[in-house]
């Protein structure tokens, strides 16, 4: 019930934020921080000990029993990690939203997106899952479209339509599951627990027509791959990240990219094996190509935002890879557990790292008026704290041992090697490129000779510094004590494998 | 001896096509209305030809004749109003509404 309370509070906050007008900025900041604290308290209470996989805090409110529509919630270890991530991201996004620049509607959009995210992570009924899944898009569309860069009109539409198409494919899959479940068991239900159970049941799946089975799997996987995004369906990514205002970029990179990963590991993970070897091979291929291709593309970007957008997509390639190789593994159990947990850990930490990177770029943008690498240069001289923090973010993003990014990538590499063999070359290649352009960007923008055209700039201090430091410390802690997230995630993965 | 069904049906279909062609091709509203009447009446002819034992088609035919009369009343009054406003009744050439 605590988590339901948090959800309702966030939803109410969105309403209050629009009513308050002038004070909405401070209200949103306080409310999102309170939400974060509440989520952390909740996690400490419920997940610090005694969690052994599965879903806890389950509540069912029947809305229409006869057709299986419940407002049904439940939290897994993985969802909890993402809940914490959501709390952090939105608190930070509210924090960096300047009240002088944005009207109260912006704050409402932020809170609404957070409500959608939390709702999506906790719902255990497909109808509500879908509703929240779509609902997240609308406020983000408005954030990009209303406050975005010069090409906002086209880009926001592209973002919406792209992800909307993917979502409706998922909706079709949900329908198909729903109607075939009804066909076999004569029960109408949208409950995830029952439908997912059925998909793991051999008698149910063998009775499904081939085409229906693959259609169901395709719909889900396609929707999640677009959201990640994975290689061939990434066209919306860079433009949206670049054109969104900074709070929007933080939300996109930090929270929304976790949606696809949550879909893969939180929803279809129990029956991912049904995809079959051929399908899983394709997924592995997509993951590897994503890692290498996005790394190469990122290398040629001039804008920091675009570069990091591709870097973010490249890290998501690891997630696709982890998902597929968890089922391909010939040795089963041990490796599968490592690689799956690594994938989930990667999703959660990736958001926090992206937050640090984009928030730092935001402050650089504020100070210097530019976020293009060639027009920066040597800003370490005037802004040592800011530069160091951005460097920290970049290092975490490229996977430096000791920081959070390393743990996920390392477990994925270790765990997927038996499954994919020497194809791992792609992965190493991608990581090399990633490392090189991260360092190159840091070198060019932060160090080296100072670009005198920028004039005198000041370092950050006070609240922004504290905020960035906190985020960096979180990354550091997760890098040193990954068990904080790894524990519940592994319990969840273990419960399924 | 009854007429084979094919004869009235062919005539009706022919009339129907003539009427349709008239509506499509003519520009003057009055001509279009007359062509419409031909279409409707060809349909009535067809209806009567299929009436064998039951009176149903005849009933419908009677209704259709009444409705056709109402339709021409409405059509003519519309045309009168059009003439007053536009000074012509060339329907396809009215071009206040553009795509």
């Amino acid at each position, binding site marked *: 019930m605590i988590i339901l309370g948090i959800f309702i509070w966030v939803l109410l906050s969105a309403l209050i934020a629009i009513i308050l007008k002038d004070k909405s900025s401070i209200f949103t900041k306080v409310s999102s921080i309170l939400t974060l604290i509440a989520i952390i308290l909740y996690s400490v209470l419920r997940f610090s000990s005694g969690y052994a996989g599965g879903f806890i805090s389950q509540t069912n409110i029947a*809305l*229409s029993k*006869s*057709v299986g*529509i419940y407002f049904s919630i439940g939290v897994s270890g993985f969802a909890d990690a993402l809940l914490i991530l959501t709390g952090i991201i939105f608190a930070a996004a509210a924090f960096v939203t300047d009240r002088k620049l944005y009207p109260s509607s912006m704050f409402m959009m932020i809170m609404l997106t957070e409500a959608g995210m939390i709702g999506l992570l906790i719902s255990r009924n497909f*109808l509500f899952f879908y509703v929240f899944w*779509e*609902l997240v898009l*609308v406020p983000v*569309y*408005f954030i990009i*479209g209303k406050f975005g860069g010069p090409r*906002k*009109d086209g880009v*926001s*539409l592209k973002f*919406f*339509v792209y992800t*909307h198409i993917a979502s*409706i*494919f998922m*909706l*079709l899959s949900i*329908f*198909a599951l*729903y*109607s075939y479940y*009804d066909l076999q068991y004569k029960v109408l239900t949208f409950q995830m627990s029952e439908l997912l159970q059925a998909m793991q049941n051999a008698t149910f799946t063998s009775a499904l027509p081939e085409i229906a089975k693959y259609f169901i799997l395709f719909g889900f996987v396609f929707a999640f791959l677009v959201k990640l995004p994975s290689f061939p369906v990434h066209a919306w990514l860079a433009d949206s990240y670049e054109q969104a205002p900074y709070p929007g970029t933080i939300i996109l990179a930090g929270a929304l990219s976790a949606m696809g990963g949550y879909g893969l590991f939180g929803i279809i993970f129990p029956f991912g094996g049904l995809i079959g070897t051929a399908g899983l091979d394709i997924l592995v291929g997509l993951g590897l190509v994503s890692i290498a291709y996005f790394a190469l593309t990122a290398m040629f970007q001039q804008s920091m935002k675009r570069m990091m957008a591709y870097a973010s997509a490249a890290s998501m390639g690891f997630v696709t890879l982890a998902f597929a190789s968890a089922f391909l593994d010939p040795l089963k159990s041990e490796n599968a557990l490592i690689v799956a947990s690594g994938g989930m850990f990667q999703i959660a930490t990736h958001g926090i790292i992206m937050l640090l990177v984009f928030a730092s770029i935001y402050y650089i943008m504020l100070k210097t008026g530019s976020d293009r690498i060639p027009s920066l240069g040597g800003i370490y001289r005037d802004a040592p704290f800011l530069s160091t923090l951005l460097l920290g973010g970049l290092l975490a993003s490229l996977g430096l041992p000791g920081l959070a990014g390393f743990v996920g990538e390392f477990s994925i590499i270790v765990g997927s090697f038996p499954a994919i063999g020497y194809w791992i070359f792609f992965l190493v290649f991608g990581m090399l490129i990633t490392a090189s352009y991260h360092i190159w960007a840091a070198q060019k923008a932060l160090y080296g000779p100072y670009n005198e055209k920028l004039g005198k700039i000041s370092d950050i201090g006070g609240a922004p510094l504290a905020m960035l430091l906190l985020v960096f410390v979180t990354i550091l802690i997760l890098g040193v004590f990954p068990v904080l997230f790894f524990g519940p995630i592994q319990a969840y993965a273990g419960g399924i494998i | 001896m009854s007429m084979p069904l094919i004869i009235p049906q062919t005539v009706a279909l022919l009339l129907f096509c003539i009427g349709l062609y008239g*509506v499509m091709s003519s520009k003057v509203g009055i001509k279009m209305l007359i062509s*419409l009447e031909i*279409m*409707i009446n*060809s*349909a009535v002819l*067809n*209806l009567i*030809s*299929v009436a064998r034992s*039951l009176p*149903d*088609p005849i*009933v*419908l035919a009677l*209704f259709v004749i009444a*409705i056709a009369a*109402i*339709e021409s009343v*409405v*059509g003519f009054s*519309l*045309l009168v*109003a059009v003439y007053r*406003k*536009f000074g012509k009744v060339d*329907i396809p050439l*009215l*071009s*206040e*509404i553009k*795509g």
Partner: protein
Amino acid sequence: MTFDTNQLAFYYPMLVLGAAGFIILALGIKRLRSIVYATIAMAAFVVAFILLLMEWYNILPYVASEGMVFNGFGFYFALLFLVASGFITYPALKNIAARSEIFYAMLLFVSVGMIVAAFSYNLITLFISFEAVSIGTYIIAGFHKTKRTLESATKYFFTGTVATAFIIFGLSYFYLSTGTFSLLGHIAVSSTPDMLIALAFLTIGFGFKMAIFPMHQWAIDTYDGTENSVSSFLSTGSKLVAFVIMLKVFIAGFAGLDTYVYVFFAILAVATMTYANISALSQNNLKRLLAYSSVAQAGYLILVLAVVGYAPGTQAADYAIAAGMLYSLVYIFMKGGAFLTMNIIRKDSPSVDDISGLGRKSPGLALAFSIILLSLAGIPLTGGFLAKFFLFLSLVQGGLWWLAVVAILNSAISVFYYFRIMMFMYWRDSKEDSSFDLSVSNRIPVYFSALVVVALFFTFSLFFTILPFAGGVFGGL
């Protein structure tokens, strides 16, 4: 044929409406203010509505003398038609100054026709009710005698009458092949080719009224040219009448030719949706854009026929029909509301530009219109989403995967142009020469439809309440 007195009760709503129509015409001599006529009409709608509800709950469904069946299906649609008529009663006041009694009398007579269409299961009465609606709407469309309305009414009249001829021709072939005009009971088909001719002619005839591609061109011009409230009525009430009649004729009447019905309507639905959505993309005139969207929605509606043709007698078929019923309800408010929103723009033929800056001038109104647009696009938290949701569910249930995918892609295309309107509304500054008429009477219908559209989302169970009535399309109880 006997006429027992119990049966008379079922005709009270129609009698009330008809009587009110004549009363309004009679009062016309006194030249009262328009609002008096509107109020009388509204009162008649309310009374008829209550009477229908009472009959539905108190009296068991009843088969009257051959041709009229008073079942849940009929009652549902009859109520819907009354809502569609009542919805424009007051908004129409704004634009009809002279001789408004004729307008309201016509609206009432049209409503009588619509209710008869809802209950009738005989092609003769169906045809007559259809014509009553058609002729009434010709007059309503041309009522406001400006050049634009006259032109659109004339185009509407000519295409509509051609459609009538097609219907009669089709009916004669239907009779030739089946020997009956009744849709009740088993219909024995003696000659399939004749039946196919009937199918083609009837589809063309009714398709004109429903504005299905390729019979849609009149609709674009007419919706564009007529007054906003009339466009709203033409695209909701009169279109839904055609939809109900099509449901009855092609599901019950062509029960033996399911495969043909499926092929026919699957192709038509795909063509209609795709053509209309793609045309709407490049449309700059706001009312024409809404008109194209209305054509696209007709494409979604006839998906119902494709599903029923493909999987007749299954649960999927019931779902499809019930989804069509729910869609019709939502459709009245989203499409009607969208056209009524045009009232706030003080221009005859507004372009998309003309709505720029509404978000700043009146945030509430912009929000309400956005909700309506989101509903048309089928985004969650709106009734439009729920209606599409169940429609697609029935497609998947029936096994029509390819059609579901096409429908979904179309629904995604449609997002482009609905969101384009929202983009102008919120993110562009208003043009200097554009002005909005933000009077209360213009706002209320928009707010009201937005509210209803949202409320319809939160009544999931409504679909399952109307599901049992879906079988009523065959004239059963």
